């Protein structure tokens, strides 16, 4: 069922010709421009109102936005509900911490290692997980995520359960540029925008079309000659690699790494961000991450039972807000197929 059907659009509108090859309408593009422009201006605003902590918060939000964005490739476009995505975040973060503890501090080297390790982990666990479907896929990805979690817990050389604190942030080609919060912020924003644009292209490409077709009807895709498994596994590796890059930034932002980054709760939160934001929209999960983390901060300030409040809000959103934040924006603006 398409989002427009879910929104209860009248039938005659559904039947109007869809624009050829146009996957993302003007609504989504506008939302992306607004969100990224607002982020780009944020350090200026923080400076004006004299609240440098805003930049730190926003950096943290963008880490999860990047991870949620990558998860949307799996959940939103590939119908692969991975419940172990935080493992890749953790792999990226640990790549930084472990390499740094051996004196390898360059972020480019750390990122290459993080992406390689995450890709390998994704390839092996994905190949096994993708042999299953539906709820079994959810459970097996959860199991692999927990495996990664407990592996790091038991790795006492690198802090075990307590995690490790970084002495300082990564270097970039020998410079200490990223020690500056604003530089780190813009570096991550650039990566986030790049990932968004790249994934937007990918979704419309031959590869993306096969992924989307498989989501809709795998039997049909096989009957015209595709082997969905190879494409799904590739998507799984791509999503894992991007999440690992988010992890590299997470380690740098927090200057601390612990197994908690890989816990199943984290994976669940990433799913929530995707669903809340509107899966299969790419920009939705970015908005979802922003909303989730702001709400978390805000509710936490109110009461220690903030998770309960968050749960209630989530249920309301699922009940009344089909299509997540993207769907809500679409209905509010009365826009067409955004």
């Amino acid at each position, binding site marked *: 069922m398409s989002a427009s059907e879910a929104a209860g659009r009248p039938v005659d509108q559904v039947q109007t010709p869809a624009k050829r090859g146009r996957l993302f309408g003007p609504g989504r593009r506008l939302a992306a421009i607004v969100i990224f422009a607002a982020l780009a201006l944020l350090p200026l605003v923080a400076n004006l109102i004299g609240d440098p902590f805003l930049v730190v918060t926003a950096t943290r939000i963008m880490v999860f936005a990047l991870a949620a964005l990558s998860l949307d490739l799996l959940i939103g476009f590939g119908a692969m509900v991975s419940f172990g995505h935080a493992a890749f975040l953790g792999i990226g973060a640990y790549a930084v911490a472990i390499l740094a503890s051996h004196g390898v501090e360059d972020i480019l080297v750390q990122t290459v290692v993080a992406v390689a390790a995450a890709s390998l982990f994704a390839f092996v666990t994905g190949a096994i997980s993708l042999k299953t479907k539906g709820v079994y896929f959810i459970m097996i990805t959860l199991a692999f995520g927990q495996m990664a979690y407990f592996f790091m817990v038991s790795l006492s050389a690198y802090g075990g359960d307590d995690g490790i604190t970084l002495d300082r942030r990564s270097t970039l080609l020998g410079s200490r540029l990223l020690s500056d919060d604003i530089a780190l912020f813009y570096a991550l924003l650039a990566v986030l925008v790049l990932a968004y644009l790249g994934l937007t292209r990918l979704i419309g490409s031959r*590869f993306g079309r096969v992924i989307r077709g498989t989501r809709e009807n795998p039997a049909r*895709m*096989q*009957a015209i*000659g*595709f082997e969905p498994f190879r494409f799904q596994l590739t998507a799984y590796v791509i999503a894992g690699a991007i999440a690992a890059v988010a992890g590299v930034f997470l380690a740098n932002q927090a200057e601390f790494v612990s197994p908690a980054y890989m816990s199943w709760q984290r994976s669940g939160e990433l799913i929530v961000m995707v669903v809340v934001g509107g899966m299969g929209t790419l920009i939705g999960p970015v908005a979802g991450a922003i909303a989730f983390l702001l709400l978390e901060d805000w509710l936490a300030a109110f009461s220690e039972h903030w998770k309960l409040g968050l749960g209630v809000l989530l249920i309301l959103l699922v009940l009344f807000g089909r299509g997540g934040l993207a769907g809500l924006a679409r209905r509010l603006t009365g826009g067409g197929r955004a």
Partner: protein
Amino acid sequence: MNTPLLSIQDLRKSFGALKVTDGVTLDVPAGELHAVIGPNGAGKTTLIHQLSGSLASDSGTIHFDGDEVSRLTMPERVRRGMARSFQITSILSGFTVLENAAMAVQARSGSSFRFFGRAGAERRLNDEAMAALDRVGLVDRAERRAGSLSHGEKRQLEMAIALATGPKLLLLDEPLAGTGHEESAALVALIAALKETHTIVLIEHDMEAVFQLADRVSVLVYGRVIATGTPEAVRNDPQVRAAYLGDETEAA
């Protein structure tokens, strides 16, 4: 004599104790439209599953175009030129009609591990897809969402997708299923036209359509072929009349 395009030898399949395909042997020469008829539950759809590769056979062999294909996966068989349509419409509802066909062209046109160029804008894929839509008469629906088509149009699209894979052999599983009188007349005309260019195994319930289209007919009952021959010969076969046609004509 040429070897047949499709040659089935002693094919078997059981679900538990139920023998659904029970030693089917059948040759379909190139250019023939071979109809398979039989009562509900005779195993016709199962046979199509086995031929297309979506279901593994317990034993027996399938030769296609001179090679054994019995152990090949469905995508491998499609690439060799076997295409199937589904008894229950199986299309990509959220995609446009054109993209449904273009996807099938894409499957056989170079690598699909391309991550950046816009697939929807590839002229060559779209042109070949259009040609397939043209054959089934859906060109004016090309930009519609496939899910919004009428039932008859969806049946046409089923066939356009199969055609777009560039097949030598079409395995059509009850292409007229659920269609009204006019829709089915149009589909019969379409199949008659496809017969000029493709070898076809046609499973169909509509006897009128079968006797109009088929060069030869096989009658499947409880997973066995009880008769094969021209429509005329099969119609007059006493065993067939007893087992199947008799009931049909009485019921009709």
